[in-house]
């Protein structure tokens, strides 16, 4: 039990922080309700996938600077393929784009493994390449999205007989949870997942324990690409278009990974923490808007909150270690 608390302490702390922020939000804006929560979840969606993409490579001891560019490329690809096409065609587009993310991610991983160039350099280079490719696909924002895809993140899930509760379960949340769990849970329980943690913790020790280091690293990057493609699709689904210029997802993903208690050295942490961290960061943004804070100050506040939370966490961790 104490072990569980110790291990999940950080995530628990973040959850508490999130709830406190929700209460504060209600105090600022007494009318804040289920609809607004739905908006929050939809805002979280692309960030959450970006963070998932970053988390998995960070756990594997790497970093992926191309997350944002990958999202842009997959987003414009999806939007331009669906432009003028039938509703059914989207049934083909979605798996195609996901596969594209998987392959591009795997290419990242292969470049790192084969050339032995540091990950930060390779993904920096692919950032430029993917960004250029996105502009080649669509020179300006455009394209469109199938209606049924757009509908999957609008509204709430109807639980018969429980209208009260179901109003608080936006479809976007269900989609997010399903997409993350369908990959993360089997991964976590498999030897592949263990291997990803192992190469992140110590590549040498993992190699000596018989882990196929190169293959595991490539798979980690491929899964990261898959999550990034989901993020790109989420962008297209929520905006209805594809935009070739990467949004602020790279820095945000690194920030949330850190805030979520995943050590940047690798080998530690999980997916839940960073996802909760994304919710926290988005809710902070909501509160800053609700409070009508001077827009030039919000960046400072967001930065300060990040230092404060991580510092506080470090402080707690140190105290825990001493006692």
């Amino acid at each position, binding site marked *: 039990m104490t072990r569980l608390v110790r291990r999940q302490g950080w995530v628990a702390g973040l959850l508490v922080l999130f709830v406190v922020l929700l209460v504060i939000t209600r105090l600022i*804006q007494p009318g804040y309700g289920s609809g*607004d929560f739905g908006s929050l979840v939809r*805002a979280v969606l692309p960030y959450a996938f970006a963070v998932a993409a970053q988390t998995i490579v960070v756990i594997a001891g790497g970093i992926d600077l191309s997350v944002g560019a990958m999202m842009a490329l997959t987003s414009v690809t999806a939007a331009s393929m669906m432009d003028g096409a039938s509703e059914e065609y989207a049934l083909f587009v979605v798996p195609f784009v996901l596969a594209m993310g998987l392959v591009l991610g795997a290419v990242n991983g292969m470049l790192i493994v084969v050339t032995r160039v540091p990950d930060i350099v390779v993904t920096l280079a692919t950032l430029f390449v993917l960004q250029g490719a996105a502009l080649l696909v669509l020179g300006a924002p455009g394209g469109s999205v199938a209606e049924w895809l757009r509908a999957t993140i609008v509204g709430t899930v109807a639980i018969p007989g429980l209208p009260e509760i179901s109003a608080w379960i936006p479809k976007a949340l269900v989609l997010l949870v399903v997409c993350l769990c369908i990959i993360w849970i089997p991964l976590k329980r498999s030897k592949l997942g263990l291997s990803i943690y192992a190469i992140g913790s110590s590549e040498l020790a993992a190699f000596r324990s018989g882990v196929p280091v190169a293959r595991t690293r490539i798979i980690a990057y491929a899964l990261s690409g898959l999550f990034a493609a989901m993020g790109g699709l989420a962008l297209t689904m929520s905006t209805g278009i594809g935009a070739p210029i990467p*949004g602020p997802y790279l820095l945000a993903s690194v920030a949330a990974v850190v805030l979520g208690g995943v050590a940047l050295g690798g080998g530690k942490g999980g997916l839940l923490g960073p996802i909760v961290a994304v919710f926290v960061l988005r809710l902070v943004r909501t509160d800053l808007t609700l409070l009508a804070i001077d827009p030039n100050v*919000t960046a400072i506040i967001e930065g300060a909150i990040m230092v404060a939370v991580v510092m506080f966490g470090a402080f707690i961790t140190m105290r825990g270690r001493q006692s």
Partner: protein
Amino acid sequence: SAEAKYTIGVSNTVQGNGWREEMICAIKAQALASGEVTKLNIAHRNTDAAGQLEDIRNLISAKVNAIVVNPADPAGIKSALEEATKAGIVVVAVDQAVTEPSAYIISNNQEQYAYLGAKWLFQQIGGKGDVVYMRGAAGASADSDRDKGFKKALAEFPDVKVVHEVFTGWQQDQGKQQILDFIATGSPFNGIWTSGIDNVIVDALVESQTPLVPVVGADNAGFVGQLNSVEGLVGAAVTNPGSIGGAGVTLALQILNGKKPAEQTVLVEPQLWENATEEGKAKLKSVADPSLSPEWPVSISIPEWTTYTKDQIIACKGPGE
């Protein structure tokens, strides 16, 4: 009858840019001057369409009465604008159009902006020659609208060739770097069209002692000053008033007070001020305003749409500040 009763939300997705800054200041000044606004709720940061969806929805949560939005993309924020209208919020898009039919639009005509300037430039160089085409941000909708206008003018002048096309990202330092890079290649050119990153381009020409060629820019104070003062510089400034933001506030208040405009879309047409002719020179002299920041458009007000004073927009203070 003007008693303060409305809260207005603002959403803007480019920060740290002179034009957008003037737009925000015009919104603040107009809100203050109207006396009908109690509070402005400004979401102003660098982000994409998805980020703007988030900001607009946050403004809906904040229960504002109207939202003035400069869209990151005309189509990308449709769903949030629709939700806003459903929640009884008046939505006014400024600077660029949006596809949401319930929203009101008061906008500069970006296609016309590019067309006017490009046509003047091509005529100025005698209908033939090499021009440098310095665009805005790749993928931005205002940039692609302007590209349409530029291409339309280009089609009318078959002997004009674009020798160099770059995206400045609407960043001064980047634009200067790019023109320096291009000058460094030694390739000849006869004219430069810029998407509003103009005064640093003239600086670069002067610094590198390159012969001055005709330059087209926007009505930024710095560039207008250069057109008046730099020896041998021929050029034109096309108006693109950032004060359109103030007009957006006025329109929103009119609608809130029950005075709906006849058309859903109101276009503000650009003007061109050049220094090649005597009357053009006189016009440029009259509009020059060295007291403004060089990146601010000199057209700090729009007659009939804005009521604030110059001091108010420069102070950049909204109600309650």
